[in-house]
């Protein structure tokens, strides 16, 4: 089995089927225009205030990019005024994590519609299309079929999310350098790039869960209903349940100890640990989804 060829063909198919739908194209264009408009307004305001501080009624002192600042001397740095008032200078480490979180979160938010639509269509959509039988009648083994299907959704849909977010955000981060929306937070471009693996791992969990639901569902409509309920349970249930689990189960102390140790680590170690923590649910969900994927039950 030529897996790279299969993956390329599946990605091409996903992109073509997604981008050839008029509604999807309009969705992309409108999202991009809104995003460019919002960022453009921010850049315009920043330039106006930095060029004529008196006219804007605010005194702006641009902070140097965080990469050039020593990380451990936050207390000794001067406070920076902004249009929102005086805000203490933020630590470079926190800014990096805000940037990574912002990058991953916004990208996921922007691509979530495409990602979910394509994920839930992996098998249920093929069923609706009456193409599932032909797909299953191909000589691709179960693991390759499931994993390739997931990757063919994950990679192009994430790329669409980054196209919508990363490019305008990086340009804005470069132009603003030391301020975003009046706050003295400069967005380091490298931190935005570091958000790519973070977002991919979070998306991988969503795709594995969605593909498993899709394979078990009789139609795209059924898959959407089940996934909606699961999404609600996992995210909201997890939000309430996780603190309780940490408090009342033996998992609590080691997780708290890990959290304390993580805060003391250098950034690169923190980043690696965060990726590892995100990779664990993605791997578990993928393995569970693979175990649930029974090719000879998909048509019954």
């Amino acid at each position: 089995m030529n897996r790279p060829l299969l993956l390329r063909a599946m990605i091409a198919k996903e992109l073509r089927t997604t981008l050839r739908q008029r509604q999807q194209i309009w969705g992309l264009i409108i999202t991009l225009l809104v995003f460019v408009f919002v960022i453009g307004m921010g850049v315009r305001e920043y330039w106006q205030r930095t060029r004529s501080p008196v006219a804007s009624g605010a005194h702006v002192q641009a902070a140097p990019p965080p990469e050039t600042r020593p990380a451990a001397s936050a207390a000794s740095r001067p406070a920076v005024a902004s249009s929102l008032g005086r805000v203490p200078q933020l630590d470079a480490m926190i800014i990096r994590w805000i940037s990574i979180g912002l990058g991953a979160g916004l990208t996921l938010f922007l691509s979530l519609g495409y990602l979910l639509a394509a994920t839930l269509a992996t098998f249920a959509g093929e069923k609706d299309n009456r193409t599932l039988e032909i797909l299953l009648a191909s000589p691709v083994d179960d693991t390759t079929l499931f994993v390739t299907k997931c990757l063919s959704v994950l990679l192009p849909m994430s790329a669409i999310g980054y196209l919508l977010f990363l490019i305008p955000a990086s340009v804005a981060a470069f132009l603003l350098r030391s301020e975003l929306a009046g706050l003295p937070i400069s967005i380091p471009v490298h931190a935005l790039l570091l958000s790519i693996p973070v977002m991919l791992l979070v998306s991988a969990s969503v795709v594995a869960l969605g593909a498993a639901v899709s394979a078990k569902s009789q139609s795209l409509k059924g898959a959407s209903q089940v996934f909606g309920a699961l999404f609600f349970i996992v995210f909201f249930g997890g939000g309430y349940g996780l603190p309780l689990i940490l408090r009342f189960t033996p998992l609590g102390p080691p997780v708290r100890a890990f959290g304390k140790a993580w805060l003391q680590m250098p950034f690169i170690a923190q980043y690696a640990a965060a990726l590892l923590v995100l990779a664990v649910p993605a791997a578990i969900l993928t393995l569970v989804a693979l175990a649930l994927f029974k090719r000879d039950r998909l048509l019954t």
Partner: protein
Amino acid sequence: MSDLAIQTQGLAKTFRSRRGSVLAVDDLNLTVHTGEIFGLLGPNGAGKTTTIRMLCGLIRPSAGQAIVDGLAVTDRPDDVRARIGLVPEDAGDHGNLSLIEELEYHGALHSLRRATVRQRAMPLIERLGLGDRASHRLETFSKGMRRKFHLIRALLHQPRILLLDEPTAGLDPAIVEDVWDLFKALAQQHQVTVILCSHHLEEVEKLCDRVAIVRQRLLAQGTVAELSGGEGRWRIALANDAAPFLPLIARLPGVHEAAAQGALLRFSLTSEARDTVPPVVRAIVENGGAVLEVAPDTRDLRTLYKSVVGDAQQPGGPQ
């Protein structure tokens, strides 16, 4: 390499759900030879599609086994699928891909590169009259054009066995004969085995070397001539009641399955007793019978099909 392309032994499938179980296929024993066009007939719900899916490894049998091209489907399903080209009855496609894009995608499922796909597909596309539509999206195709595309897709990876479920449904009659010629050429020149599920009995009669009639289980299997009684089956029409002559001819050597229906005597001859017809006629005439007609007792496939499927529906017949 075995001469048998497909062999099923006691193949069975029961679908179980909370509402009960449904027996779709029961104790099915089929033998299909390499390079043969084999018709699989049966009424709706007879288990034909389930049988096809079990042969492709898409459904696991509840009992029995299927050997395809010498490989047990349950042991090596991926290898079996590489040898099979499938055209399901309700096949679909990705409407917003063009014909050639969809073929490239399908080719990748069989590890075929784009150049190979185009090289193999173009002659088929031209043959089926879709040459000027290769770059058009499938959603713009008519039902018949889509059916042609499904055939091209099934042939793309040069399968050794073709499983076709109503392959010519919706096709323009002018192109149907071209498609039949294509199937014949594949079977005769390339030794491709074709399993044809069809309710189009004329198609089956014209194309198939052998047929099987199924209704959950196998009801009949053989060449159309064998099943329709053309080989060794005779009927004698009398001017009077045939019943008194029945014991007389049943005693003759080589005669079996003799039956009387009004003025009609029906009987079969063993293969060694093909020349026994004149002695049978003589025996009737010598005993006072007035023979009006002697003819091979053939039935067309439609009559045979109705008779076999009808018998199976009778109380006590196979269900």
